[in-house]
């Protein structure tokens, strides 16, 4: 699913979005198209960061509430030139960060070993080594917040580094470093898990 939207992703930063044009023109079908186009990826990002389906749904809801609120108030020209995807991620990042800073979610991060089994009900098919990818997401929860954001944006949201920089405000090289170190740490964490399974 994430892969299918990739060609569009690569263009999004540079070329004005036609959906932004439709929003500026007042097309009453455009708001629904915006939700349909970005809802799933925003949810994936929020779930990876918060690792709680209900919290992730709430984050998606708040993100769209904020987004639509702003879209109603922006001048027409600003709407027309908006890079919607990166802009939406910027909002979601803030929403998710606030939820984490509220402290409620940080507790869950500390209890990772129980995480995967508790969450496995979110997948309908328990076969095909499903625990392994759940391990990856659980391990993601043990990274520092910055590394987690960087890795989630790069590999779950599939954003190119230029857009990660735009969304987070980090220099592009910082984003690259955070992703590299984050993935390195994930590998280490998951090796530890593998060892445990073998033992």
């Amino acid at each position, binding site marked *: *699913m994430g892969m299918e939207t990739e060609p569009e992703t690569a263009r999004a930063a540079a070329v004005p979005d036609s959906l932004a044009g439709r929003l500026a023109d007042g097309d009453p079908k455009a708001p629904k198209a915006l939700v349909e186009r970005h809802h799933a990826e925003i949810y994936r990002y929020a779930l990876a960061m918060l690792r709680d389906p209900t919290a992730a749904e709430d984050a998606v809801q708040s993100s769209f509430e904020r987004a639509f609120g702003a879209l109603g108030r922006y001048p027409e020209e600003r709407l027309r030139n908006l890079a919607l995807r990166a802009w939406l991620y910027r909002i979601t990042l803030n929403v998710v960060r606030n939820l984490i800073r509220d402290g409620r979610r940080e507790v869950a991060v500390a209890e990772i070993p129980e995480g995967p089994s508790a969450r496995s009900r979110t997948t309908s098919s328990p076969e095909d080594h499903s625990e392994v*990818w759940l*391990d990856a*997401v659980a391990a993601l929860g043990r990274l520092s917040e910055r590394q987690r954001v960087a890795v989630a944006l790069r*590999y779950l949201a*599939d954003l190119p580094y230029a857009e990660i920089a735009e969304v987070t405000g980090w220099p592009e090289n910082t984003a690259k470093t955070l992703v590299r170190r984050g993935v390195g740490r994930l590998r280490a964490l998951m090796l530890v898990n593998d060892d445990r399974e073998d033992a």
Partner: protein
Amino acid sequence: MNEGPRDLHDDRVATLLREATEKMSPRGYPARLVERALVTSTDRFVVVGSPLGKLYVGAGPRGVRLVRRGGSAEEFAREYRRRFGRLLAQSDDARTCKLAEEVARAFAGEKAQVPLDLSETTPFQRRVLEVVGSIPRGEVRPYLWVAREAGSAGASRAVGTVMANNPVPLLVPCHRVVRNDGTTGGYAFGAEQKVRLLELEGVPTKEIARTPYLATPTTGIVCHATCRNARRIRPENRQHFRTAADAVEAGYRPCEVCRPVTIRDAG
């Protein structure tokens, strides 16, 4: 395929994360959540048939805020966004369908529950619109009456301006407000449409022009000509008046139901 470091493409961790992306994609519930995200943070847009043809209707969570005729849906949504700072969105959720049904009923002159949100109007405008909302179907009232009822006696012209800028025509029936001499006067959708609407509602527009007041010697009461009490007066007893003040000078007292203004309007 992406600009990431080459060594990561074959990395098992990266592959697993991509796989996780697939698995975490919401499959069963997007429709419900899409509606939820949409309905709570945008305003509703519906197109409803009426005696004036199809009308665009925009409604916030508290009620209908704008009704317009003609132009495109896009133009309507842009005007709405400029006025209220909210996006209008088409949706087919239950609440929106219910709203469209009720508005259609109201446009057709049937009993309907259509909440209005007039929070963006001034207190004077709101008082005027509330008074106009109380004029029953089949009846008309002059500007000076609306001004007096709204607590601003003599402000006929200001009432005319409020009518011309009525954000929710038909739902607030500004077409039932006529000139002080009983002629129908102007209308945002065209003077001839106003006559057509009033005739459709059973108002004898020609009959009341120039003589908008009716009195009867049997009770000694003077009414607006379309007041339900005036309509019961037998033809042979009908006394026509140009103003209610004239009728009072002739010895009649004002009806307590339609409360005609008996002081000569300065405005």
